[in-house]
């Protein structure tokens, strides 16, 4: 494939990958943040201690999280068609991606919150703050630096997962590399895709580090 043939395809693929990653990060990131906060706050001894809820949430997360993404895409396809109205294409990949990202994020969030000093929550309670305010202004706010780094890690993981979208003709750089590189024995195309992914990931990492450093006021 010549450069002039490849470039428009590559642009499209980059656009699709970014669409998948950014929307997944937005949807799955937010849902995962909520789920992670729920996992943390319902733990025994914590702000919203609730044994049944905690047990159920943990069970769901533990079951879903280890499913390999490539199998998960196919397994939830009936549901995907119901929700997005399509069985292939970028939009149809975002659905399983967002679900997987939600569960992945929830554990990352929970792990970052566990190291939070319980004294801070105690202090906020002693000042008369309610649970919602404490979650927003103490729990999430105090762990924001590590959380941003967690989300940066997530960005990389989603980029990785999104490449598997190629398997279900979901578009993006993974699809691009498979269709025009692997199947046509064109290693140049494959390596171009690799290069672009590396650049995207590096930029995301750089941005994440900057943001985290700023929040941690170093």
């Amino acid at each position, binding site marked *: 494939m010549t450069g002039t043939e490849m470039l428009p395809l590559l642009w499209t693929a980059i656009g699709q990958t970014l669409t998948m990653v950014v929307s997944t990060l937005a949807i799955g990131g937010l849902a995962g943040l909520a789920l992670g906060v729920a996992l943390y706050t319902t733990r025994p001894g914590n702000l919203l201690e609730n044994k049944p809820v905690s047990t159920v949430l943990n069970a769901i997360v533990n079951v879903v999280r280890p499913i390999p993404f490539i199998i998960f895409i196919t397994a939830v396809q009936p549901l995907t068609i119901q929700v997005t109205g399509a069985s292939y294409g970028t939009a149809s990949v975002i659905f399983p991606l967002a679900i997987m990202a939600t569960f992945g994020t929830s554990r990352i969030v929970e792990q970052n919150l566990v190291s939070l*000093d319980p*004294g*801070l929550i*105690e*202090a*906020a*309670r*002693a*000042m*008369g*703050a*309610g649970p919602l*305010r404490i979650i927003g*202004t*103490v729990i999430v*706010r*105090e762990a*924001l630096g590590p959380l941003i780094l967690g989300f940066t890690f997530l960005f990389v993981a989603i980029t990785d997962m999104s490449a598997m979208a190629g398997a279900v003709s979901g578009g993006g750089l993974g699809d691009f590399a498979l269709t025009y590189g692997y199947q046509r024995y064109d290693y140049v195309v494959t390596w171009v895709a690799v290069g672009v992914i590396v650049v995207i990931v590096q930029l995301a990492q750089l941005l994440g580090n900057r943001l985290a450093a700023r*929040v941690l*006021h170093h």
Partner: protein
Amino acid sequence: MSAMVCLQHVTKEFTAGKQTVRAVDDVSLEIERGEIFGVIGYSGAGKSTLVRLINALESPTSGTVVIDGETITGRTERQLRPVRARIGFIFQQFNLLGSRTVAGNVAYPLRVARWPKERREARVAELLEFVGLSDKARQYPDQLSGGQKQRVGIARALATSPGLLLADEATSALDPETTRDVLDLLRRVNTELGVTIVVISHEMSVVSYLCDRVAVMEAGKVVEEGDVYTIFSSPQQPVTRRFIATALHDRPGPDVVQRLRERHRGRIVTFGVRDGHGSGTFLSEQFRAHRVDGSIVYGGITDIGAKPLGSLTFELVGTEVDVDALLVTMREHTDVVEYGGPLTPTDTTVDEATADAATDDDARVEVAR
């Protein structure tokens, strides 16, 4: 006018698995408006649980908590929030929000109370001025020393002008000098702002420096309670005596007595120094009247609630008859402990309390403040 805090038969139990711990056991207390009240006890005595009951972070298993005339027991979590907001709380580990500046931390309770921005800023400036940290407003807590952090903690606790301030081991993470500064600040909070303060501590020196009254806790119970001078000068419970010994260091332990006997030829006697008793002039008059020479070999006098308290240990030199007569007179005025001389050691058993505290080798006289 009703008491600031009134606990009526308050019990708090924690259940972990099959085990039940009674952290606070049938405690009844009244803390008056405007006083500084101390709660002292060893680790696990239930002090923290007690203060957490006072500001409704915990609710009692049984009994009633009344704050400023309002019964707070039996209220819902949501109803308790305004009660907590009206009580200041400062912590051993400061518990400042690391993501906010000093000003941001002090402003936090005002945000909770929904103060408008301009009033908030004015109030924060006023509070930082009061605790002497105006120049640190824009710094973050991790840039401050321990003493400065606790000042921020105090400013934050005072933000909404509470009538009651609870301090749970507020100085336990600080060095002695910084401790003194923070205690002085707490005293200003009490005298200048009229805030009632409850001080939790395991250090008797903190209580003696700051408090008007004190309760001694052991295994969840208040075993002794009274004004600080009375508790110090005539403790009833063994646990109280042990605490006092740690603050006074005035009586020689058995090993020190042994060394004093080896070093001195005369009889070794300790006289208690009380408010109005055993003062310097009285002692020297008695020594002269009984033709006895006394030289101080050990002791300490501490100022407790603006009154002197402690004891002085003397080597007494004179005829046996004269010294005996002196001791008879002294016994009428203060407590006397006789350790005997080198040749006729009357082995007075030194009580447990003083033995714990007095491990110092050298005789010393400390006159605090």
